[in-house]
């Protein structure tokens, strides 16, 4: 009989076990190569594409014509492709696993949304196309506006803001315009201590000074402190509901009443709208302006710097000041109000050159229509249920910051359970990477010591939540059992080990410069 194994071992025990400290000869890990910067690759003087020489432009450019090498690396198409695909393999994404960043809402981006956004009729539009040729896109914007207004119980919406913080800016500009129209410019904005950092930043950017409102021991706005700080110079309050502790502001009706009584407007940070969509209409709570992160509540892609979309809904009092453009029904179909005259005479201006992020509008609208009104309500219910499941399962080994009652869409733990173990929140988060999970949000909100904020979203199954909880429970037990090295050196198995955050912050290297003597040829020639 002939054995066709040609010397190849066929059973695992034939393979010599390797030491745990094994390293490859080249720095690679498995099939993941060690990746140099694109500038450090041996690609100088090459080009991946043949282009004909440019003729005639020199006359137009005069003395602006470049005479020295531009100093960019040259790569062939496969080299460029592989470089960026390899980098992407070292990254983590919602398409790889649960991404439990609290307050950032990393939920699955349904592929149906992506398919719709790629339809040529939406994807290939030019923002200056004649209105008669883009009636379909305007119809989608009009219907998206209708859904956003209906879900929030608000009469007006500005679609053009490009992100949550841009939406905050839009809301506060509308508030400032409303006060100025009354001849009563005010100078202060009240913000609770647990707010997203963008809230006080936005208020300051608009020219207001910021006063903090204290928080009660159970993690809500302190009504007495709010009442004491409200006054004739307060333009607005900015409250997130549910707040960044993952708690519903139970006194929100009273907060709105006190605010309006003082002649101020109520800005609600709608970042956490995903916890109440379909269940609560912010307009019924007395909110005057609220941004909605389409990338959070309505599942458009999030992270990587955008594109985002942060439409702002406005109350009757603020609606006249909404920025252009918006869609209106005219005799010849849909059209856009672009000029700040007539019906838009009080509009405070514009938030962007054109209409906003069309691709995000399509994705968000596809998400709404594929879920329907009942489906969106279930989104909120499941998001809250999942967060409470995590809170309940982990409360045996970790300490919830607010143990009383249920949480909303995110579960918040403090670090008192780590006391005496020698392990910090940061160490624990890094060890999660070795176990295959992206860390939770840590050290935020600032009002909770060593905070760990976990947001599972509605898109995770019970099996996935259990895998996550099992990993965290095992890690927590290891920390309490004194297995400190597992944490202090973590991550051991990630493409990059623990970074020196202090050195990176104190001596940041933000640009690449050739090292003297080893510069690639085109640069050395300069």
């Amino acid at each position: 009989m002939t054995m066709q194994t040609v010397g190849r071992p066929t059973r695992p025990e034939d393979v010599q076990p390797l030491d745990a400290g094994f390293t490859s000869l080249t720095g690679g890990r498995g099939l993941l190569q060690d990746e140099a910067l694109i500038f450090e690759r041996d690609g100088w003087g090459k080009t991946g594409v043949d282009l004909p020489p440019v003729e005639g432009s020199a006359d137009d450019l005069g003395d602006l014509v470049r005479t020295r090498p531009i100093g960019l690396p040259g790569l062939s198409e496969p080299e460029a492709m592989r470089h960026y695909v390899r980098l992407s393999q070292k990254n983590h994404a919602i398409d790889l696993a649960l991404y439990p960043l609290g307050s950032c809402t990393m939920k699955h981006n349904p592929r149906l949304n992506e398919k719709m956004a790629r339809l040529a009729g939406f994807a290939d539009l030019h923002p200056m196309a004649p209105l008669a040729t883009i009636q379909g896109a305007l119809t989608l914007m009009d219907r998206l506006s209708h859904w956003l207004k209906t879900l929030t119980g608000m009469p007006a919406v500005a679609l053009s803001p490009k992100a949550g913080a841009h939406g905050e800016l839009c809301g506060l500009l509308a508030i400032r315009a409303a006060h100025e129209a009354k001849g009563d410019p005010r100078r202060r904005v009240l913000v609770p201590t647990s707010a997203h950092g963008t809230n006080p930043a936005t208020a300051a950017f608009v020219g207001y000074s910021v006063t903090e409102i204290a928080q009660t021991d159970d993690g809500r706005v302190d009504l007495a402190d709010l009442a004491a700080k409200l006054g004739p110079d307060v333009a607005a309050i900015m409250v997130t509901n549910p707040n960044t502790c993952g708690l519903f502001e139970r006194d929100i009706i009273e907060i709105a009443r006190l605010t309006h009584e003082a002649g101020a407007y109520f800005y609600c940070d709608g970042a956490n709208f995903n916890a109440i969509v379909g269940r609560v209409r912010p307009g019924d709570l007395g909110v005057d302006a609220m941004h909605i992160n389409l990338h959070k509540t309505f599942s458009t892609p999030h992270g990587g710097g955008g594109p985002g979309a942060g439409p702002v809904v406005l109350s009757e009092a603020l609606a006249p000041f909404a920025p252009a453009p918006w869609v209106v029904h005219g005799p010849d179909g849909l059209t856009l109000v672009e000029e700040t005259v007539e019906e838009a005479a009080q509009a405070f201006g514009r938030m962007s050159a054109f209409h906003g992020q069309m691709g995000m509008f399509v994705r968000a609208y596809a998400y709404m229509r594929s879920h329907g009104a009942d489906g969106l309500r279930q989104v909120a219910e499941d998001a809250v249920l999942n967060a409470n499941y995590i809170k309940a399962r982990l409360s045996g080994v970790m300490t919830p910051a607010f143990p009383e009652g249920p949480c909303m869409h995110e579960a918040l733990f403090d670090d008192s359970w780590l006391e005496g173990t020698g392990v910090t929140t940061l160490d624990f988060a890094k060890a999660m990477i070795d176990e295959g999970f992206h860390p939770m949000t840590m050290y935020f909100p600032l009002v909770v010591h060593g905070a760990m904020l976990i947001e599972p979203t509605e898109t995770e199954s019970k099996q996935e939540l259990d895998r996550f909880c099992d990993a965290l429970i095992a890690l927590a037990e290891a920390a309490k059992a004194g297995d400190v090295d597992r944490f202090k050196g973590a991550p051991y198995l990630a493409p990059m080990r623990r970074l020196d955050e202090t050195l990176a912050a104190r001596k940041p290297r933000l640009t690449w410069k050739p090292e003297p003597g080893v510069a690639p040829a085109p640069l050395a020639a300069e």
Partner: protein
Amino acid sequence: MRFTKDHEWVSLDGDVATIGITAYAAEQLGDVVFVETPDVGKTVAAGDGLAVVESVKAASDVYAPLSGEVLEANGALAEAPETVNQAPEAGGWFAKVKIADASAYEALMDRAAYDAYLETL
């Protein structure tokens, strides 16, 4: 030396108050990576923001414990913010402020009172 509940310290020499953050605050912040000190000549009221200290964990306002005019800022912190961790209650000072009312200084917590306050946190 006197202390505030916001973890600033003050030491008084004549009518000049030197202000910094306490060792407890520096330890809680972790590695300090950036300090924004006030402009000389700026007038501050007690409780106003005086400086900003940024660590790898968070950016925090440092409040003026007393009212007065900024005479000098610790420019060395721009190049060596780590001094705030190494010597928070000495070389890591933030600003010197000429104060008008020395009695406000006496009203702040002394070391024993501050230590007792830390026990309650």
